[in-house]
């Protein structure tokens, strides 16, 4: 038996030695393919098994956490003013369980607490934070922050900023210009939220662009964090070299209705960048800056299409009625469909539906223009 196997192997080896190169390579790869396939099967099974076990574990832990929180934290009467921290302390006692002594269990606990904190404000939210601190979960987060893996760092930053645990500027600021996008974004978010003195400092330092995706999150953080002192955004609109910072500041100006930044926005109308110019016009329109109307109408003819559309929209938003004639002219004479549509939209926005002008236009316009007008007047259509 043994002998014949050896014989067989020997014959294969013999064949292999004297086969052409192609065949040798092929045989080699047959073995590579078989082993990689087996590895793939093995890792699929292992992953599924582990994942299944982990999910079950997490579900069980979450249930336990929910129960403990319901009994200890959520049971306080929201309207009574108890001594803050007291409930958290009893809750912390309850959480001293072996399940929460290992790293994994603690991570599940952190995630769940964060989830709770993101859903509830006020005293109850503060209790959750105190609980996080009492259980010394912040130490876990700080340990993660020191990790060399970027994804662990990002996670740590998210945890700390959501729990509002202060982190030293020296640690965060270098990360705000990290080459890794995700880390950079997380660091910026944490910085805005946590920095006591100058949360907007990184606007000055930002060399890397603010991605649109990150702007969304930054915007949410800035507008929902209570203690942030809102600076005058004009300083960045005027001086920043980072285009994305300027465009982001324009959106913030609109959100905070920051009239004192308007001169800077008006200056931006002269920028060479037509995309930025369009954003500036948009900002002026949303702020309803009536003083800007004349200038907008004046520069209109020299603008590329995107800016022209923005100007028409802005005139409609401001709606002072001063430039109705201009809008009407644009609506009647422009050759571009989009321009006519926006002119019509702005007209119908600023004029009451039964007004003389609209009736006149409805009567005198071409079939297509009439359709555009009706489209714009229909309350069912938003755009």
């Amino acid at each position, binding site marked *: 038996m043994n002998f014949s196997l050896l014989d067989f192997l020997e014959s294969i080896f013999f064949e292999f030695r004297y086969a052409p190169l192609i065949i040798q390579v092929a045989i080699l790869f047959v073995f590579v393919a078989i082993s990689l396939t087996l590895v793939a099967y093995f890792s699929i099974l292992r992953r599924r098994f582990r994942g299944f076990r982990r999910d079950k574990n997490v579900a069980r832990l979450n249930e336990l956490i*929910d129960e403990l929180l*319901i009994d200890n934290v*959520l*049971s306080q*009467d*929201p*309207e009574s003013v108890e001594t803050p921290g007291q409930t958290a302390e009893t809750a912390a006692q309850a959480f001293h369980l072996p399940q929460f002594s290992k790293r994994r269990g603690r991570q599940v606990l952190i995630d*769940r607490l964060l*989830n*709770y*904190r*993101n*859903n*509830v*404000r*006020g*005293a*109850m*939210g503060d209790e959750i934070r105190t609980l996080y601190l009492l259980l010394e979960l912040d130490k876990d987060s700080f340990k993660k922050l020191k990790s060399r893996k970027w994804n662990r760092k990002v996670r740590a930053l998210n945890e700390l900023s959501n729990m509002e645990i202060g982190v030293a500027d020296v640690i965060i600021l270098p990360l705000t210009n990290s080459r890794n996008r995700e880390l950079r974004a997380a660091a910026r978010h944490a910085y805005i939220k946590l920095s006591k003195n100058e949360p907007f400092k990184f606007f000055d330092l930002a060399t890397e662009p603010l991605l649109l995706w990150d702007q969304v999150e930054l915007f*949410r953080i800035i*507008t*929902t964090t209570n203690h942030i002192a809102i600076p005058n955004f004009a300083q960045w609109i005027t001086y920043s070299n980072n285009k994305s910072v300027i465009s982001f500041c324009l959106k913030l100006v609109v959100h905070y209705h920051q009239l004192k930044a308007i001169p800077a926005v008006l200056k931006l109308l002269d920028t060479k960048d037509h995309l930025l110019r369009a954003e500036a016009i948009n900002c002026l329109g949303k702020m309803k800056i009536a003083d800007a109307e004349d200038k907008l109408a004046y520069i209109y003819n020299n603008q590329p299409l995107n800016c022209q559309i923005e100007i028409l929209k802005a005139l409609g938003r401001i709606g002072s009625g001063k430039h109705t004639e201009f809008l009407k002219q644009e609506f009647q004479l422009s050759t571009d469909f989009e321009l006519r549509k926006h002119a019509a939209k702005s007209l119908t926005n600023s004029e009451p539906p039964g007004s003389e002008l609209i009736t006149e236009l409805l009567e005198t316009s071409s079939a297509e223009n009439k359709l555009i007008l009706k489209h714009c007047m229909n309350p069912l259509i938003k755009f």
Partner: protein
Amino acid sequence: MSKILLIEDDEVMSTIVKRILQKAEYQVDHVRNGKEAFEILEHTGYGYDLIITDIMMPYANGFEILSKVRNIPDGRQLPVILLSNAGMDDMIQEGLKLGADDFLKKPVLPAELLMRIRRLLNKEVS
């Protein structure tokens, strides 16, 4: 004891709201999506004193539930509170237009939640 229907797909959020309401001695039924909501409403014959609903959910969103409730004789007077995420001001406007009585922004402030519920329920009585 007033009966409240909570329609919310997020597990944590519903745990919190449910607990707050139970603590304040309301009877709470909780469903996770639009389909279950319609089922339970049909089943109980709209037998609730108040509905609290999330906006974005599977099967049918909060607005659909709201408009359906408003289209039914039993539901015309039924107070509905929308739960919305912060920043969805447009949506809140839309919801109020559809006939929502009030709205609450997430994250919720427990005291505020109870205050709004009481106001609506008391209005109902008087």
